[in-house]
């Protein structure tokens, strides 16, 4: 996979990468919009987007459905590290179904999640202007 396929620079945009390395239910998020934003999920961060989360029993808000709205804010690149999944006994089948509508392709619905290897994740990080870690 070419992790740098979406060129930046248009309209003075910077490439922003939000790095998620922590399990859910301990973190608060803020996103900068009108920028070229990607999300990276590695280490325990992959647990953020595991499907089937039911938080009723612990009395906390379930934030995971929020990820499905990202496409509406033109956040369409969610890079998920394969090795982090495998170490946790997880596969792409265990992840939320997160999609976006591609305006350049007759609004076709496409998957936002891109499973990448650890070395590809390195390349994703290397391609950014700003990296924010949670």
């Amino acid at each position, binding site marked *: 996979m070419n992790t740098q396929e979406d060129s930046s620079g248009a309209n003075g945009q910077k490439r922003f990468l939000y790095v998620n390395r*922590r*399990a*859910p*239910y*301990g973190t608060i998020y803020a996103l900068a919009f009108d920028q070229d934003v990607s999300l990276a999920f590695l*280490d*325990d961060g992959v*647990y953020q987007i*595991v*499907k*089937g*989360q*039911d*938080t*009723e*029993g*612990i009395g*906390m808000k*379930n934030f*995971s459905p929020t990820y499905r709205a990202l496409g509406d804010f033109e956040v369409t690149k969610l890079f998920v590290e394969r090795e982090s999944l495998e*170490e*946790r*006994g*997880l596969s792409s089948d*265990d992840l939320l179904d997160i999609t976006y509508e591609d305006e350049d392709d007759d609004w076709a619905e496409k998957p936002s999640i891109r499973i990448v290897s650890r070395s590809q994740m390195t390349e994703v990080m290397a391609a950014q202007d700003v990296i924010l870690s949670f």
Partner: protein
Amino acid sequence: MSILHTVNKSPFEKSTFRSCLDHAKSGDAVLLIEDGVYAATKGTAAAKLIAARNGDLALYALAADLAARGISETSVIEGVSVVDYGGFVDLVAGHDVSQAWL
């Protein structure tokens, strides 16, 4: 005298789960809560640590914390008993001492 150990941190992020198992005596109980429940999932390094104990510990995981994290019963290692909050209380009451591995 048996101890109830509780672990609330992810085994991938902290060494508390490993340290707990390294210090738990045969016949002790280990209750996984909060992010500690990730240690109860199949196909992980934590699962291998549990298997290495050959069942000499009583292992439990809190149902609400499993559900919150999308961990289904089929993903939980065999030999780990799922308990609710009432079961948590029973475990505390049923052991001489509780040790929280934070």
